[in-house]
């Protein structure tokens, strides 16, 4: 049986489930944000440091804040229905453009962080499983938990002090050498240099999670009957681990990794602040502070789509990893 129909089914299911979620998010957040004290005009006036009655009124009109709340919601939903995320008067540009500018940066950062976290996590987790219950297991466990327990901004700042200020190896912030026209390999190297520290800061928190998950999954799978079957065939422990245990153990880990995509966007707020990384997390924070609802709603919508997309990717990955999925 080909896996394509299964994947298609999984995707359709995901999309169908996503629609009410997305609508729910829009409505919930819309009213939630209405509860926040102050509006975009207040925030912009605060930022500007001066205002008059006329400018306040003009701003409220531009933001549509003078309309009844329900009208604002309907306008927004109407925009959405026409595949528009609306316009941010604060940034003087369409929200979709604004998000579009930041999306690639955020996505690469998240992807890199996830890759680093998975790489280190899988390695540590496999080691822990191999030494389960013994000293190395406990030590690695504490070691990984330390990274989990240290506040992310502190790690971030310390990495800057060490690698940028003291050693001068890596840039302290930003996402690339500005104004340089590097392309090809040099361009990639440049981007990578800027990404190492923020991605590592973001990843360290998740290392503990993946390490522990890997350990648990490996131990779980290690005791499964089919592993015994594999040993009974006369396979060596290495072959059994690679061919039989690892692939099965990856299944819960991919689930978790998919789940973290949404969480990383939130966690990125702090990291992006520390590294002045032009990402969505920071934009979301600024949108909250600026009461720029269209932008915030846009980001929340996007992040929910991102989560849904990540789930779909995980589904596909798991369909490939585990032939049982999607059969029913």
């Amino acid at each position, binding site marked *: 049986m080909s896996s394509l129909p299964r994947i298609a089914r999984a995707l359709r299911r995901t999309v169908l489930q996503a629609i009410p979620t997305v609508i729910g998010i829009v409505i919930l957040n819309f009213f939630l944000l209405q509860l926040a004290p102050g509006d975009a005009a207040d925030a912009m006036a605060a930022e500007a440091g001066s205002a008059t009655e006329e400018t306040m009124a003009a701003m409220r009109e531009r933001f549509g804040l003078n309309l009844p709340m329900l009208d604002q919601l309907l306008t927004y939903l109407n925009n959405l229905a026409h595949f528009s995320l609306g316009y941010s008067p604060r940034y003087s540009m369409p929200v979709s453009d604004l998000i579009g500018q930041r999306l690639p940066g955020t996505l690469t950062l998240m992807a890199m962080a996830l890759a680093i976290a998975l790489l280190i996590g899988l390695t540590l987790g496999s080691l822990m499983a191999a030494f389960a219950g013994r000293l190395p297991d406990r030590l690695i466990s504490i070691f990984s938990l330390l990274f989990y*327990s240290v506040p992310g901004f502190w790690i971030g700042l310390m990495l800057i002090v060490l690698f940028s200020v003291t050693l001068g190896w890596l840039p302290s912030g930003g996402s690339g050498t500005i104004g340089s026209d590097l392309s090809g390999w040099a361009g990639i190297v440049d981007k990578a240099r800027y990404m190492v520290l923020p991605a590592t800061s973001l990843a360290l928190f998740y290392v503990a999670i993946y390490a522990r998950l890997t350990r*648990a999954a490996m131990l779980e799978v290690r005791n499964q009957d089919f592993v015994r079957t594999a040993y009974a065939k006369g396979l060596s422990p290495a072959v059994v681990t690679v061919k039989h245990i690892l692939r099965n153990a990856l299944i*819960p880990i991919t689930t978790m990794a998919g789940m973290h995509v949404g969480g990383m966007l939130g966690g990125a707020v702090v990291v992006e602040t520390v590294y002045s990384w032009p990402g969505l997390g920071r934009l979301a924070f600024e949108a909250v502070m600026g009461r720029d609802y269209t932008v*915030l709603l846009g980001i929340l919508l996007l992040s929910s789509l991102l989560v849904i997309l990540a789930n779909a990717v995980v589904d596909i990955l798991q369909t490939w990893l585990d032939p049982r999925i999607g059969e029913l």
Partner: protein
Amino acid sequence: MSTTDLNAPAIALAGARQGAARPEASALPEWHNVRAPDARTTLTAAVTVPPGRRELRIFFSNPNALFGVTFLSIMVLMSIFAPLISPGDPLNMVTTPFLWPGQDAAYPLGTDAMGRDVLAGIVHGSRISLFVGLAATALGLTVGVVVGAVAGYFGGWVDDVLVRIIEIFQTLPNFVLLVVLVAIAQPSALTVTVAIAIVSWPMVARLTRAEFRAIRAKDYVMAARSLGFGCARIIFTEILPNALPPLIVTASVMVASAILMESALSFMGLGDPNVVSWGSMIGSGRELVRTAWYLTALPGLAIVFTVLALNLIGDGLNDALNPRFSEERS
């Protein structure tokens, strides 16, 4: 792994421990299916310990868990006796600012930018940090368990609706939601606590729901239904006690995450200004991280060790609670 469909890191961490190896002392064979019918007879029939004793023994034979309990006990004692250890308001500006640790014997951990005693801050801060951690967890756990239990037990459209709601909360980036909530409610220890609870309940709900769905199909729940037990009775006396072990493990990790979230909020300037918490100490010391790093490092260490202790306790609980019950539930 009933918990793999969880979103939040905290719970993930708890989830990651599901199915961990059995303690080495156990005499159980490792293969799952080495059993003929009635196999467990011989394994357990002779054991006549009341439940709990065995778990405690396993728990306290784990050095990591023991360390966690010891450290946390010290922290709790410190928070209880804070007014005795360090009398007076820790926010008081008592002496010269920027005394380094050890510089003045009266202020062994030094003073901050405003001349406040760092030791007093850490001692009193334990109250708020632990309070926020425990209260947010208690609240999140209560809401999450109720929602998860209702969704998992009743299924059908109730489940559909609740799962949608859970999903909405889970899809939102946690920290962004937290910031929005605190921005709405204005930062205070109480609002921060409630906000953290609001972002953490969905994970609990999901976990509870998964456990309830699994346990609901057990014969003893069938038996309870066939005996005419009411829904509340089945939920609270039949299912919940059996769903507790993973929830207990999760709770210890949730306390840790709540403390971390509080500190991150303080970092972003959204902490309660009228009380000292470890997070707020870090928040106010963060600008000085280059010149007076001890101002962030000391409360940071308090957080790290407390979070570590809680996680180690979670680990230990998992080892102690899981094996037998994973078997009972299998």
